[in-house]
């Protein structure tokens, strides 16, 4: 942070004021789109179609949410997303740690060879069709494992964990080794308990990636009941597909539909967004810490 002594010059005062105004406008543009869609999702059909800023609904209506929650595919989508996020993240973290720990040991034979073998995959890969054919050959098409196994270990994340392990003092493990503990025990009862910050960070990275993933579900899953939330959302919001639009639109007193497709779309978007917005303030600091950890390497 730069310093000034004594009074600010007029130029500095103008800059400070302009900076605050600019950053305020910037913050508004960062949140406005969410407020806009949130407002539409709670609107009546007349209000949703009106022109305007729409920061707050004129008359609050829950019809949009009623219609969305009556859709069975939203619920299965939620279930599938939660399933892959929980199981997938657990396996991601377990296998990333089991990969990173041996590679963090300088005395591991052929350590550099193994590391190079993994790092190479960060820069070169088979591409879309070879990956698709692999999943097909493994018999994983239309299986929930197709959403978990192909991304089991992210090379970049694993390297960050490895660097963290390398920064731990070696003395910690030596006494346990004298007591006869093997490497697997040392990892789980000594190294992991002191690695909570990095474990928390990568868990969040993996969890958010699983929560937001939709393309693998589009590629590998054809049964709509196994589709993840992002996929159901895509079908409703972007494709407007009828297969996914089993909505009971209801009617108001004038005999007009109580909800429009736009209200349903907005409510669907909010249903997918709100869980993230709710946990976001609590997990944000871990993410920021994670970027710092990652940047140490670069």
């Amino acid at each position, binding site marked *: 942070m730069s310093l000034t*002594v004594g009074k600010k010059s007029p130029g500095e005062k103008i800059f400070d004021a302009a900076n605050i105004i600019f950053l305020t406008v910037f913050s508004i543009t960062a949140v406005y789109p969410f407020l806009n869609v949130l407002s539409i999702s709670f609107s009546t059909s007349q209000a949703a179609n009106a022109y305007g800023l729409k920061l707050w609904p004129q008359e609050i209506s829950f019809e949009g949410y009623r219609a969305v929650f009556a859709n069975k595919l939203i619920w299965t989508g939620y279930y599938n997303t939660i399933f892959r996020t929980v199981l997938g993240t657990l396996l991601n973290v377990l296998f990333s740690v089991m990969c990173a720990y041996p590679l963090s040991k300088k005395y591991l034979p052929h350590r550099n060879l193994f590391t190079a073998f993994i790092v190479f995959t960060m820069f070169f890969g088979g591409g879309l069709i070879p990956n698709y054919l692999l999943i097909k050959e493994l018999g994983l098409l239309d299986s929930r494992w197709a959403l978990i196994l192909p991304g089991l270990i992210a090379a970049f994340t694993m390297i960050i964990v490895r660097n963290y392990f390398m920064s731990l003092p070696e003395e910690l493990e030596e006494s346990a080794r004298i007591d006869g503990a093997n490497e697997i025990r040392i990892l789980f009862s000594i190294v992991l308990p002191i690695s909570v910050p990095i474990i928390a960070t990568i868990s969040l990275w993996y969890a958010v990636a699983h929560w937001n993933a939709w393309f693998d579900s589009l590629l590998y899953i054809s049964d709509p009941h196994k589709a993840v939330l992002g996929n159901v959302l895509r079908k409703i919001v972007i494709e407007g597909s009828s297969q996914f639009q089993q909505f009971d639109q209801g009617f108001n007193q004038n005999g007009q539909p109580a909800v429009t497709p736009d209200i349903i779309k907005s409510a669907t978007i909010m249903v997918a967004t709100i869980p*993230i917005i709710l946990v976001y303030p609590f997990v944000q600091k871990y993410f920021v810490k994670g970027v710092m950890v990652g940047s140490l390497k670069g």
Partner: protein
Amino acid sequence: MKQPGSVTISKRFRNQWKSYYRHRYLLLMLLPCILYFLIFKYLPMYGIVLAFKNYQFLDGILGSPWNGLENFKVLFSGHDFPRALRNTLIISFYKLLFNFPAPIVLALLLNELRVIFFKRFVQTLSYLPHFLSWVILAGIFMEVFSPTRGVVNYIINLFGGDSIFFFGDKEWFRTLLVSTEVWKSVGWGSIIYLAALSSIDPTLYEAAVVDGASRWKQMLHITLPALVPVITIMFIFAVGGIINDDFDQVFNFYNANVYEVGDVLSTYTYRVGISQMEYGLSTAAGLFTNMIALVLILVTNSIVKRFSDYGIW
């Protein structure tokens, strides 16, 4: 007579085996990881041979006949692939131009704020879009940019302009892609620069103030030079990513109206491969993309290393 060399080789082999045995638990732990990368990363690399084959469903990868560079000839003599390549380069160039400096500027502006509470507030709001997928954001932007109800057109009309159908207009589609990308990633991207800024030694500024340096001079001579290493590394990654256009974003934004300006290599590869099941063509397009990305990152890294000490390896 025994060769003198063979003794050392078998001895080395025995030592090797001993060291493997001594570290058996570590190696055992590493085994699933190696298997994972072999199966899910290296096996698909073998599938690249499809780029040089005429894929027949009944014959599989191995049995399909070779056809040399035919797939590449078809790609480059067609209309869609060169168009996708051109779009990728244009869109990526604009993203590099606007999206790369934006987080640096934001970090510098945030760094000048004195009110810590306000700084935290702006930061928190600016990170938020990073956590949402392009599926959600595409839905949100379709509302915000809607020609009949969206706020952007509301403002345009307020100032006497005509509504624009941003998602279906060839003139505007790339602007839409670039500006929404900046919107999504600028806050998150600024974290790494803020981290670098927070590690600058405060005594440097104190000395500068004593010497009578204005805030502008302080930024020019202390703050910016301190950011150079981070900027360099982020730049290498950004150039390496030029060809890896953002599939998630384009795929959720585009429609047949704007293929001419919006279809990029990754969406082309997906359409040809999955929708039209032209596996050979799609693999060839993917291989082409991958090779260019690899070359770009190697070349940028070596050029940057020649002129500075900061490479990514």
